[in-house]
């Protein structure tokens, strides 16, 4: 056995040497003139292209960089590896290609860095295909309008701000308001509801402990088998943080282009913009507002435009993007938040106040919007949730007035009463995404007023009891309802069933 091993080794070595014999060719070469802070300045290589990968020779193998500043006298390139190994005077050669990453189903269940190298210690990843990191977004003719639902499993979102496959929906809010939780629940829901949607989670400069906790949780929930995690930590070079979303997008695009559906989460684009600002300033590009470079809008617009619903001709696949933006003290009019709000097809705004009041997910009904999702909402949910957003905002308005006096007419009292219960109903613990039937049943029962006499603190218990009852009594009908394909009319059998059960259940909780 050992002999055979040696023979193959000798063969491989011979092949390698033979390949080298043929490789002598006149190639352009440059030299490093300056290096520091992850940026190298290179003399020569006047034929290098924008974003081309350059190889820099060092004592211990070569280090890659990609060219970003092509100037008359020199090239500014950003290192993809350790800058301490690169010395001034080092030889630089062109690679002739732009950055690409491995893509394909082989990556599912893996944690990789933005260059596709495994970080989970589960051995090398061998994919058949590679995808360009920077790739132009699909054109007008290749697209179709967003019409299929991407269920998040979060009732407040699915009922009021539905997201469609191929949509870009921003999740925005201060730190510690549950932005990532919404994204994770959405990923978990894809596995629970067996939608077959592939998840790509891109961590941009996130604490690695947080990423590792997230991966463990996803594994526990059985979601990891259909998930790719692209992880970068705060100690990674800015170049990797900058590349991470594009690399993750390339991995998601593979599924989009192969007639599948993918969901990509960029957590978060604020750090991405900051990493790009660092790179730009080190490359001596002029700073603009908040010291961000002039093309920071393009940075995000070209990334998010790659999320799309493809036309039937191209296989009707989709890539849904959920970018996350962190605001400072709820200021959504800062530079990066306004940029990304204007790029995306809507936003889910998370509020600290709501979060502290115990309304979790802390989604602000007034500031959140989904610009295309209405077409994509499941018929079942759409038919029952029409009045939800309106009655909730009426409630909020009245609640503000009601604080001044207690003399209220009956109608106002009723609206307030219903609003409190609705708010209570929309609370949902983390890691517990709800199916379509659960959402439909809960909303139908509350809208019909069956819970109006149940004390607010017992609403969640009543809801749980209703769902248990429905599931144990009429499993088949609920399975049918969970497909969400049919409208739920007020006088349909299923609505009657829900109403009847709700009445019965509510009786037991009324005081």
């Amino acid at each position, binding site marked *: 056995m050992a002999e055979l091993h040696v023979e193959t080794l000798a063969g491989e070595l011979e092949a390698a040497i033979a390949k080298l014999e043929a490789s*002598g060719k006149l190639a*352009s*070469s440059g030299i490093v*003139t300056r290096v520091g802070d992850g940026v190298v300045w290179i003399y020569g290589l006047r034929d290098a292209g924008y974003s081309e990968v350059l190889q820099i020779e060092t004592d211990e193998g070569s280090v890659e960089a990609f060219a970003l500043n092509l100037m*008359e*006298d020199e090239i500014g390139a950003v290192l993809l590896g350790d800058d301490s190994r690169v010395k001034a005077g080092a030889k630089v050669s062109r690679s002739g290609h732009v950055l690409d990453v491995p893509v394909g189903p082989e990556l599912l269940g893996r944690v990789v860095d933005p260059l596709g190298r495994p970080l989970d210690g589960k051995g090398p990843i061998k994919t058949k295909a590679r995808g360009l990191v920077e790739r132009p977004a699909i054109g007008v003719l290749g697209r179709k309008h967003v019409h299929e639902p991407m269920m998040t499993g979060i009732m407040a979102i699915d009922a009021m701000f539905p997201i469609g496959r191929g949509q870009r929906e921003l999740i925005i809010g201060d730190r510690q308001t549950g932005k990532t939780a919404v994204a994770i629940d959405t990923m978990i829901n894809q596995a629970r509801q067996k939608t077959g949607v592939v998840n790509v989670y891109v961590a941009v400069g996130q604490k690695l402990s947080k990423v590792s906790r997230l991966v463990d949780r996803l594994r526990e929930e059985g979601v990891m088998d259909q998930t790719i995690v692209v992880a970068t930590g705060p100690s990674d070079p800015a170049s990797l943080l900058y590349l991470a979303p594009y690399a993750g997008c390339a991995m998601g695009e593979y599924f989009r282009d192969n007639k599948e559906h993918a969901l990509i989460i960029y957590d978060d684009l604020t750090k991405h913009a900051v990493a790009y600002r660092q790179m730009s300033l080190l490359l001596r590009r002029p700073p603009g507002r908040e010291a961000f470079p002039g093309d920071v809008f393009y940075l995000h617009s070209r990334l998010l435009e790659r999320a799309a619903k493809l036309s039937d001709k191209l296989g009707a696949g989709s890539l849904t993007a959920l970018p996350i933006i962190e605001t400072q003290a709820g200021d959504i009019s800062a530079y990066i938040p306004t940029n990304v709000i204007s790029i995306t097809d809507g936003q889910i705004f998370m509020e600290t106040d709501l979060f502290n009041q115990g309304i979790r997910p802390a989604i602000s009904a007034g500031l959140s919007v989904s610009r295309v999702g209405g077409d994509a909402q499941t018929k079942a949910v759409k038919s029952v949730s029409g009045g939800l957003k309106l009655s909730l905002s009426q409630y909020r308005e009245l609640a503000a007035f009601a604080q001044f006096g207690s003399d209220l007419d009956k109608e106002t009292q009723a609206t307030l009463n219903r609003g409190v219960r609705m708010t209570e109903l929309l609370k949902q613990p983390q890691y517990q995404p709800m199916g379509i039937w659960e959402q439909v049943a809960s909303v139908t029962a509350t809208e019909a007023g069956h819970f109006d006499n149940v004390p607010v603190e017992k609403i969640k218990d009543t809801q749980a009891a209703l769902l248990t009852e429905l599931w144990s009594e009429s499993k088949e009908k609920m399975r049918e309802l969970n497909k969400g394909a049919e409208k739920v009319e007020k006088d349909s059998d299923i609505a009657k069933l829900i109403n009847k059960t709700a009445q019965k259940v509510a009786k037991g909780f009324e005081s």
Partner: protein
Amino acid sequence: MLKTSRRTVAKVIADQLLNGASSEKLMQQLAGYLVKHGLTKQSDLYLRDIESLLATRGHSIVDVTTARELSDSLRKQITKAFAGQQSVVLREHIDESVIGGIRIQTSDKLFDATVSEKLRQLRA
């Protein structure tokens, strides 16, 4: 004041050299320019730029590195490889660390067929 790019300075010098200006005087002027603008550290980059511009105008300066001294026939062969050029100046270097083979370097191109380079590639 806008900084004159290195390329522009190099172009002026290359043009003047080709027009038959005295190289000694030109270099003195260049040295003065570099000192005045605090660019002395970049002097070899300026020279490389001048070389590369001269090469595009048909006058190549080629660095040839070998382990042993070049034979006349090899010299001829190398000169022949730069067929499109009006004149080719060989700067020969002998460096035993390349072990064998030949390395030919112009201002911006490199042909590396030395044994040491092949060994390095094998290691990588």
